[in-house]
């Protein structure tokens, strides 16, 4: 500790690199900046570089299952998918606002989630990019990072609103929110590969380790404890729709800033909705289409 270490290998590039990701199986990595470059670890020149448009690309991610696939997001609000084998970009979708990063589902090859500046996360099926499969809303500021649980059932997102949230993949609302007084804007977040913990790094230069399931008991459980835990879990699941159970399950303490923001945004959303409903009510039937939340966020695909 304290010694300066020499890097084993240095590559001098012509442009700025803004993101990097390693291949899941082979000794290959990808960088992004002006273009997406695929590198062999042993070489100083990229194997291939792919580009589509001229904006700077902020992050690039390999698909963990079909490892020749890559996804990147650029500052001109688009998400571009690449195929490494054919050395060609595949598809581009332009959203309303900039996507900060994406993450592929490790259990479902064609599903990825994009963390967007418009406070939302979008889960896409890469074969049909025109409409997101699910819009995840709960953050009250830009979402900066997202990472999937290795089980592929949930993902965690880090936000500029100084909190991290855990979303089920198939739900639009978060299951859990983590925050502390001292945690500032959370820049990056990762789920540990045994799916038990979450790590996050934030602006005040700390790394924090969270339990992925806050109420879970750590350590070895006896069989009776396990049975009791399962039973309790099942009961909660069974009665989840009952008002009081629902309230308890949903209730979280939030910092004042987030709380007030949520209220404010709710008011805004309701106003919008009211307006839409009114418009629908007072116009000729059929002339105003009913648009679902998902469809309002659909981007243009190229």
């Amino acid at each position: 500790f304290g010694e300066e270490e020499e890097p084993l290998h240095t590559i001098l590039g012509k442009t700025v690199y803004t993101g990097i990701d390693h291949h899941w199986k082979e000794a290959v990595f990808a960088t992004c900046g002006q273009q997406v470059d695929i590198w062999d670890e042993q070489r100083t020149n990229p194997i291939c570089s792919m580009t589509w448009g001229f904006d700077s690309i902020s992050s690039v991610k390999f698909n963990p299952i079909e490892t020749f696939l890559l996804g990147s997001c650029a500052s001109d609000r688009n998400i571009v998918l690449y195929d490494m084998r054919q050395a060609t970009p595949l598809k581009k979708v332009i959203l309303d606002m900039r996507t900060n990063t994406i993450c592929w589902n490790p259990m479902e090859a064609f599903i990825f989630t994009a963390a967007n500046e418009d406070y939302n996360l979008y889960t896409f099926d890469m074969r049909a990019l025109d409409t997101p499969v699910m819009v995840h809303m709960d953050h009250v500021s830009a979402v900066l990072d997202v990472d999937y649980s290795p089980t592929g059932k949930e993902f965690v997102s880090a936000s500029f609103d100084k909190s991290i949230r855990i979303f089920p993949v198939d739900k639009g609302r978060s299951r859990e929110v983590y925050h502390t007084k001292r945690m500032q804007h959370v820049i990056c977040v990762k789920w540990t590969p045994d799916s038990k913990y979450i790590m996050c790094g934030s602006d005040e230069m700390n790394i924090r380790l969270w339990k992925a399931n806050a109420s879970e008991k750590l350590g070895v459980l006896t069989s009776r404890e396990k049975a009791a835990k399962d039973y309790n879990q099942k009961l909660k699941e069974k009665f989840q729709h009952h008002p009081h159970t629902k309230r308890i399950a949903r209730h979280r303490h939030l910092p004042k800033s987030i709380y007030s923001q949520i209220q404010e945004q709710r008011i805004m959303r309701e106003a919008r909705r009211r307006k839409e409903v009114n418009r629908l009510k007072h116009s000729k039937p059929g002339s105003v289409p009913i648009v679902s939340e998902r469809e309002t966020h659909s981007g243009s695909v190229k």
Partner: protein
Amino acid sequence: MSALRAEESLLALRQQEELEDLPKEYPLSTSEDEGDSDGERKHQKLLEAISSLDGKNRRKLAERSEASLKVSEFNVSSEGSREKLVLSDLLEPGKTSSSLATVKKQLNRVKSKKTVELPLNKEEVERIHREVAFNKTSQALSKWDPIVLKNRQAEQLVFPLKKEQSAFAPIEHVLSGWKARTPMEQEIFNLLHKNKQPVTDPLLTPVEKASLRAMSLEEAKMRRAELQRARALQSYYEARARREKKIKSKKYHKVLKKGKAKKALKEFEKLQKVSPSAALEELEKIEKARMMERMSLKHQNSGKWAKSKAIMAKYDLEARQALQEQLARNKELTQKLQAASESEEEEEGAEDEDEMLVPDAVNEVRMNADGPNPWMLRNGPGEAEELDIQKDPEQPPEPVAHEASESEGEENPVAEEEMLLKELEERRSLRKKPGLNQDAKPVGRRETKDSSSQEVLSELRALSQKLNKENHRSTKQKVSSARTVLPVQREEAADEEEEPMLLQRPERARTLDELEELGREGCFQDKERPRPAVNGQWLERKPNNQPGAPKEKPKKEQMIDLQNLLSTKSPSVKSLAVPTTVEEWEDEEEKDQRQMIKEAFAGDDVIRDFLKEKREAVEASKPKDVDLTLPGWGEWGGVGLMPSAKKRRRFLIKIPEGPPRKDKNLPNVIINEKRNIHAAAHQVRVLPYPFTHHQQFERTIQTPIGSTWNTQRAFQKLTTPKVVTKPGHIIKPIKAEDVGYRSSSRSDLSVVQRNPKRLSIRHKKQLKKNSVD
């Protein structure tokens, strides 16, 4: 992808078209071209010649001024000839020479070809590339669809997904890579070698080799599979046999036996048709079986079971039926087959002729006593008992009284009948008693000829005559009286105080109903078997023959009750709410209009419907009295028996009237008072998403999942968590190999695992090699 395909197909089509076009057009066009150009040329020459004739306009042909050895092909000018240099010009000199024909052809071909189109611009090309690549990729990804779907719907997912796969390399391969190093290992190795154990090459012992040679792998496998199947079948049959043997149900065995008997009969019939001799043998067998049956007491109602049933038969319909069935069976078994029995009948007929003195009725009684009537078959003791009871001096006066009260109008004839019956039965018993020892004789009928019974006979004759007179008149009464009397007669003395009470109800209920039936049936029954009504047993059996009769009765009563309810419910509605103010309609038109409206809405009486609804609501909301009476508690219970009024009164808990309804004074309103505000706070208001009907949801909520209400296994099954992960175990992303797909970058191992056939071939090769060694 489809776009790409379309492109390809289009291209192919175009090429084909070209190919097709070529042979057609080519030769034709060339000849035409040649002809044309030749003609033009001649024409041109002609024109030139004409112009040269003029002399004025004649232009000098340009000449090359510089002399040079090499004449460049590019410097050839066609100036002066006033036309461009055409390819055919160059070919002119070679026209005649046949050696240049091929060149000419080639040139022509070149000339006929079209120009190549301009290449697409870069962006277009890239776009097409992207599209094609995207299509290809998304198709490749679609293979994950089933797996993704399966995982999403899975009841439970245990991570890490990858299971430990058993090592696939055969043991020989593992061993071949291993060498003995330490001295001890070497020693052991040597020992093994001495014993010809296959440690290294050759891998097989001589015995194994021999076996291999004897049987190929496939054959062995097939044989093993066959053996396995045979064993499985055997064990299956064994298990089935054991299971069937274990079945305690007598009914099941009975049915089984019956089925077997039927089958045997069918087979016998078949046999009769095919080979009569074999059938005869079979018949003998059957006959023997019958004889055995006759000898044995198996179905004679003398067994323990039969006795107990005989006691129960008084109360229990089923027991009675069972007894009867058994008797029928006995009869069936002991009956001689037709071929043999004819002579016997004749004999019987002869005997009957002998006994013409005896009146018909008695004859029939006697005959019944022997054969057809199974009740008479019962041996001495049972009947004697009955008779004893009948003769009981303290015959209860209740039944008679009861009966009398029942059939008031027909009191006299019934009394007469009663007397007659008693007399007859007494006589019969007298006759029977001496006959008991006569039964031991092979021919039991001789008893009638006994001198002791002669006087009885004469009396009987007189009686029967009397009876025959009365028969038609009073069958009904007889039947009913016999029914009511006999059961009572059979009661034990101890029960006598209570019995009549108990019996009263069902009997009374029955008689009314059955009298009609009997009235209908009575006549033809009498015709059918003109048997005196004295035969009490037959009458007693009656309800057995028609089990529907007693069952029907309670139903009918219920029906009536329901109807009553309905009738009370459908009332004539009169209420304040009905607009009763009938104004005087002077105007004719208005009257008409009203009439019309009335006619139009004649069908639906809204007000009445509403009132009915409201009344129902009020009824439903009224607190109901709680009836806690337990039928049969502390007294007899059963069909048609009601707990006593006292008990009912005692155990009926009256609920006090609730507060007045809110809509009591509002005739046009129904206020639902069922909704409980306090409970509503805990109730689910909206049907949750996956459910489509509230009943589904209610059912899921109602089913308990705790171990208190479930078996251990069910509890475990119900509470399995959806996702199971182990702390500290790394969960890797799903792999194509894990789920049995070939990934794009497959390893050799995966191929081997995917393709067991190939492996087996390789394995075989290996084995062959080894065996050669």
